[in-house]
């Protein structure tokens, strides 16, 4: 279903990102082939200039990726109106096998762009540009990811047939026993919540420990913890938090909270969670290049900042997560 403004906007954005990515990729190839630090040749001067082009393109790419990610979810929410049986974005995304993978690739893309920009920012702080090779090898990986992103998205849009019956989120995430379409079956709310609270406490403790004394293995543990927590949070948002936001026990959907009816609550929630996970994980990523010439101090400074930011966002995220839950407990569901 391409003749729909949302599909068109998504395709247009993808096309734009693809073109920018191709230009950045061309720069990457040239830099990897011809980079000669300290040379005074015209080519080296050009390459030094092209570093700014590629970093700007990636920064734009990050911005566009975030916008398309939101656009994609909102588009799915629109598509559900034409897909018989789908009542919200979940149903629309599950309408064919490409919806969820496309969403995940887009989400992954946000992290990828983020890590690349981090590498770039660290790199340009040292006058030796020690990360040029790593940076541009990574940039070459961007292209296949973009192609995958565009392919999945196109297949998804092409596969949306307005008359296919799909399950809506009420079926997909509800506790009903019927059918195998239930995504989040088998977790009890109680144990999920305990794991969730436990992870928050654990992360906060590790982060605090890191700030007191930096230990590389602990930073790695912290990063791994954030990946675990990111996944867990998505599950908890879907199965527990969302239904308290909707004030409906059987409405469990990770996307509807993004809608104006719920005061765009989801944007705050994901807007805290995604950067928190990024900063939490990035401290360890930055640690990987700490040994490069001229980066030790820069990396140390960044790591402390990243841990502090991730902890602050963790507190904010936890507050948001429990807001509706506590409100429900206190008011007894009356308000």
């Amino acid at each position, binding site marked *: 279903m391409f003749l729909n403004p949302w599909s068109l906007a998504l395709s247009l954005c993808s096309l734009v990102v693809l073109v920018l990515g191709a230009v950045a990729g061309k720069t990457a190839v040239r830099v990897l082939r011809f980079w000669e630090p*300290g040379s*005074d040749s*015209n080519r080296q001067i050009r390459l*030094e*200039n092209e570093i700014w082009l590629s970093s700007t393109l990636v920064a734009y790419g990050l911005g566009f990726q975030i916008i398309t990610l939101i656009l994609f979810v909102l588009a799915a929410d629109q598509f559900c109106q034409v897909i018989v049986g789908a009542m919200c974005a979940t149903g629309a995304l599950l309408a064919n096998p490409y919806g969820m993978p496309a969403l995940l690739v887009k989400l992954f893309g946000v992290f990828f762009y983020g890590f690349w920009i981090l590498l770039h920012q660290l790199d*340009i702080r040292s*006058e030796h*540009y020690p990360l040029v090779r790593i940076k541009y090898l990574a940039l070459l990986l961007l292209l296949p990811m973009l192609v995958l992103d565009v392919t999945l998205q196109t297949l998804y849009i092409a596969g949306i047939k307005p008359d296919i019956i799909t399950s809506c989120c009420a079926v997909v995430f509800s506790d009903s026993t019927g059918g195998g379409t239930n995504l989040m079956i088998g977790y009890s709310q109680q144990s999920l919540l305990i794991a969730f609270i436990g992870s928050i406490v654990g992360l906060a403790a590790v982060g605090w420990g890191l700030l007191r004394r930096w230990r590389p293995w602990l930073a790695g543990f912290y990063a791994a913890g954030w990946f675990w927590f990111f996944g867990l949070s998505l599950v908890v948002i879907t199965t527990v938090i969302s239904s308290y936001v909707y004030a409906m026990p059987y409405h469990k959907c990770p996307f509807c909270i993004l809608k104006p009816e719920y005061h765009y609550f989801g944007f705050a929630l994901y807007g805290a969670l995604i950067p928190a996970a990024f900063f939490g994980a990035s401290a360890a990523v930055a640690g990987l290049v700490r040994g490069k010439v001229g980066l030790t101090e820069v990396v140390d400074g960044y790591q402390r900042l990243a841990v502090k930011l991730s902890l602050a966002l963790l507190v904010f995220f936890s507050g948001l997560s429990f807001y509706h839950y506590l409100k429900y407990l206190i008011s007894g569901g009356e308000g």
Partner: protein
Amino acid sequence: MLIELSGVSKIYNQGRANEVRALTDIDLGVEQGSMVCLKGPSGSGKSTLLAIIGCIFPPTSGKAAIADRQLARLPDRFLTLHRRETIGFIFQRFNVLPELTVLDNITLPLLPLGVPPKERKLRAQELLKRFGISHRAQFPAGQISGGELQRVAIARALINNQPIILADEPTAHLDTTLSREFMEIMQQLKAAGKTIIIASHDPLVFEHPAIDRTVTVKDGRIHVP
């Protein structure tokens, strides 16, 4: 030595058909607080030498240390970062942006440093007062007289309190009175501890008593008479 060049060469378009050897084997040391004139006809390599001292591009080979920092092999970005802390530039024809006000022209170097507007204004007003052009602060730079323009250009070179002042043919388009005035101001700055390098082939400059040394550049080499 505040400025120390040894064996500095600069080759443009290296390895190409249009290769130009602009500087060959330059050795030059300038002490803090001195005033040096770079003399030589146009095309002698004088401007290239000024650009290397001014951290605009690195030398092709040789060592160049400006304010205790090696320039060779330094990427463009770090040259810029170093330049804005150490070098104040006075251009030929003064190169102001004619549509910006005098005040905005003077504070241009402060924008990327993240100096807030209030402090920018304060610092600029101080300099304007010192050069007696406070009344021109809100005038577009394209509408003031040559003498005022010259003082605006000098004020801009001083705004970040850089230790080194570089001037590129500052008197080439000035009459004698203004040229003398320019040198007077330079003399005052020297007295205040600035290191000044002027590229010029104007006798009014290189014969000025405040000049400690005149370096003649010819065919890309320092010419020893």
